[in-house]
């Protein structure tokens, strides 16, 4: 009988040893020298929150109506936020949250991209246009008409072209970044959402077409398409939105929306290498500066899944505000 008691004390000792060991490990080896934070815009709770690299909420950076697209200015590291229901964009200090600049006059500002150092291009979901803004004078320089519901904006690698996706029209507008005339129109599958440029390739996610279409960014010819088909899913459940390339350009990550998975795609072979389970309606994506982590925003479960890209496994899912839309690395 004593053995039984002996067993118990052994066990509790064992547990405490393990606990201490774990604590020591985490103190001695903090998961690398990470010094960056994440800004996340939350559409439904009208706020931009600052999170640490582990996804924990630090504080509120900005309160504005329906914040969506964001970008970080490379020079001064300030954060631009599109406040859709205020028809405005604001520039804030991503540490203090101090509002440094505010430009109004957009109609449902959705996404934004930086053009040179002094011009921003903003997609106006409500007005079927994109606006060019001079950030030194706060003046909207010009409006380029697009199809309804313009969403993603990207540049070609040489910055000579601007691509704007129109969800409703099912096209990608190709504008010259010199004189802003429309050079061409790319016909896509249903509801093009986001785009990403990898050298001379333009990848376009088609949300309702359940695929990614690949165009040559120079010749504008359609080159390929990637149709997602994880086992156990119907094609209609796969609604890809955000996509992002690894810094070496060899791997693409695609958020599959209602399928609650992220696809890891080999850029060369176009093969999907792995599907990773995340939260509900995965949309926004961001890579850590060192490329070892992928942050995935789950719009309908109000959280963010952190994926370790070395093991290609989800590590944790942390709470965000309500309906998180975009995530940007800040304060690196």
């Amino acid at each position: 009988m004593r053995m039984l008691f002996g067993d118990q004390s052994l066990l509790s000792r064992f547990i405490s040893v393990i606990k201490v060991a774990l604590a020591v490990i985490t103190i001695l080896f903090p998961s690398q020298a990470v010094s960056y934070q994440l800004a996340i815009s939350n559409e439904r709770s009208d706020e931009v929150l600052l999170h640490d690299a582990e996804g924990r909420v630090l504080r509120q950076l900005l309160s504005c109506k329906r914040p969506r697209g964001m970008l970080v200015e490379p020079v001064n590291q300030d954060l631009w936020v599109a406040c859709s229901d205020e028809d405005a964009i604001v520039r804030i200090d991503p540490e203090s949250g101090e509002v440094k600049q505010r430009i109004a006059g957009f109609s449902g500002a959705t996404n934004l991209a930086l053009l040179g150092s002094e011009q921003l291009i903003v997609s106006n979901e409500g007005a079927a246009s994109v606006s060019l803004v001079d950030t030194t004078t706060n003046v909207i320089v010009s409006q380029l008409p697009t199809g309804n519901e313009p969403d993603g904006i990207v540049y070609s690698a040489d910055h000579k072209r601007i691509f704007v996706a129109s969800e409703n029209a099912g096209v990608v507008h190709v504008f010259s970044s010199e004189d802003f005339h429309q050079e061409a129109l790319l016909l896509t599958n249903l509801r093009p959402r986001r785009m990403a440029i990898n050298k001379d390739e333009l990848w376009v996610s088609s949300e309702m077409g359940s695929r990614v279409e690949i165009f040559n960014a120079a010749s504008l010819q359609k080159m390929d398409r990637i149709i997602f088909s994880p086992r156990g899913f119907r094609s209609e459940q796969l609604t890809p939105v955000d996509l992002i390339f690894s810094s070496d350009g060899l791997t693409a990550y695609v958020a599959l929306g209602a399928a609650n998975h992220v696809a890891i795609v080999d850029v060369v072979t176009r093969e999907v290498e792995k599907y990773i389970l995340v939260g509900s309606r995965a949309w926004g994506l961001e890579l850590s500066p060192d490329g070892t982590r992928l942050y995935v925003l789950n719009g309908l479960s109000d959280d963010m899944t952190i994926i370790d890209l070395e093991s290609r496994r989800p590590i944790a899912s942390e709470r965000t505000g309500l309906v998180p839309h975009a995530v940007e690395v800040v304060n690196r």
Partner: protein
Amino acid sequence: MRSLVLFALLAASPAAQAIELNVGTVRLKGAVEQPTTFAGIVVEPDRRVDRAVRLAIQESTIKFQSFGIEEKLYDLELDPDQPLSAQLAQIDQTHLLLLDLPKTQMVEVGRIIDRQGAVGVNVSLADQSLRDELCLPGIYHSMPSERMYFDALSQYLVHSGWRKVLLVHGSSDQDLRRKTLLAESIKRFGASVSDEREFTLSHHPDDRDRNQPEFLTGGSSYDVVAVVDSAKDYGRRIEYSTRRPRPVVGDVGLVPRAWHYALERYGAPQLNQRYRTLDPANSEPQTAMTDAEFAAWAAVKFVVNSMRADFVDKDGLKLRALFENEDSRVDLYKGTRGSYRSWNHQMRHPILLTSADYVVDVAPMPKFLHPTHYVDTLGADKPESSCQLGK
């Protein structure tokens, strides 16, 4: 570069003759614009579908231009007292007819235009027999069928664990037919009808059991009351007056719909916003397309979303080929793309389960599985439909 992409798709050069697409809205001459229940009280808005059609065309300009398509909108008011074939003589394969007609004329027009190579889309009738028994090869249905609405409702009941249903219905032929369909649907998804009760509008004391909601819904055990009242008149009295405190669904209470102003997801707010601003005089925040308007919008958008170079040649638009192609589909702003079922030409729709100011859920409900298309759990699936049009 410009011509390469824009016009490489077309065999003809941009200078060549434009490709015609004629979109006609067809209704009866003198059709009642807005039915009322009594003394001018409007319960359910019922508008002409024109505004939704204009919206769909407005959304399509860019795509049409890039294919060199010139669209023309027109209205066609049919006189039911004159032979219809004469009135439809000029309709050829360049026409897409949006049929906002009563059943008799719908069937007749469908037969006539089928011979003339045009495509007609039923945008107003949910009538099940048009899809099944009548089985019209010349007509597509972008309006959901009665069975789709009822199946969506039944899935929701089963999903919610409300399995005992008291079925309350009117006495018109339409109510009796729809009541039978609803009862079948309830049983198909594993719920049960605890009792069926017929109501009357009469206030006569002898009719007490059939005219007072408390009596009408008494003496039976049930989880939920389902109301079939096509006129949307008596049914309004039942909610909040049931003998047992139970939810009310069907034609009142929780109503299955194709579209709703309060849908927050899938880009629907943008579509609603465009619909309102298209006609600023009528832009109340709660104004939204009726199911028929949504069906008309979807019918036009189907053509735009599915447009490919394959369907355009020097002879013009091959509208029939576009409708028959398996890959043709439409972005319905309801989270799933729509397409036509090959067997009975019914458009696949998710169905919204709506209260007055909220979209409570979207059917098909989770766990109602289908081997190919979850949406095919709503409405007559291929093996059960008496209509087998596809090859």
